[in-house]
């Protein structure tokens, strides 16, 4: 299972998303590899990913993907992240 967190620069917000996604996955007892990447490298980074995590601004910019796209509103709300990950992966 591979999950990619996408943001504009790949250094700030996607890092927080990665950390909290890992926490949510641990809570759900789901094993997955979570990486952070920027929008420019999404095609490569997410080529074999099952799930892309990102913010509302990036949904239309992701391009074609076979991955499930999860749109996160509050990056610090583990309940939101857990519920959305469980819905996508469960």
């Amino acid at each position, binding site marked *: 299972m591979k999950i990619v967190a996408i943001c*504009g620069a790949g*250094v*700030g917000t996607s890092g927080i998303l990665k950390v909290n996604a890992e926490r949510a996955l641990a809570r759900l007892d789901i094993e997955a590899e979570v990486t952070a990447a920027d929008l420019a490298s999404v095609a490569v980074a997410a080529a074999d990913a099952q799930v892309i995590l990102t913010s509302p601004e990036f949904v239309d910019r992701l391009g074609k993907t076979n991955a499930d796209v999860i749109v996160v509103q509050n990056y610090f709300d583990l309940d939101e992240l857990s519920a959305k990950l469980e819905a996508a992966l469960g």
Partner: protein
Amino acid sequence: MLALPDAAILLGRTAADWRGAVLLAGEALQAAGFVQQSYGARMVGMVEEFGAYIVIAPGLALAHARPGPDVLAPGMSVVTLAEPVVFGHPYNDPVSVVLGLAVITADEHVAGIAELANVFNDPAALGRLGAARSAADVRAVFEAPGVL
């Protein structure tokens, strides 16, 4: 924890709009010696290019740009706004606290970012920052027991 000296903390400031708020975060990073002046404009440029995605939680923006030659040292800044400003985010406006983030490489600061997540996973943290009256108050939010 990323470095957060007194010079990088601006409390109760006024910004005309989101650009002004992001530039304040850049000024604070510059005052602390983390970045050169151009970095603030590059943080604004990220929002111009990608939208208000840096507003990652209700009331909180994480301003940052890519690593570059204008980043002198890794660190962060904290700006609290007397009047919240609108960034144009679909869910999380208006913003009352702006964090500025400067990193040298993307991978090097995963630990610092993880600690930021620890701090703000506590829903009370943002309110405590907004109410901070001194740099010590701000630092206490980031150094709360159980965070580090």
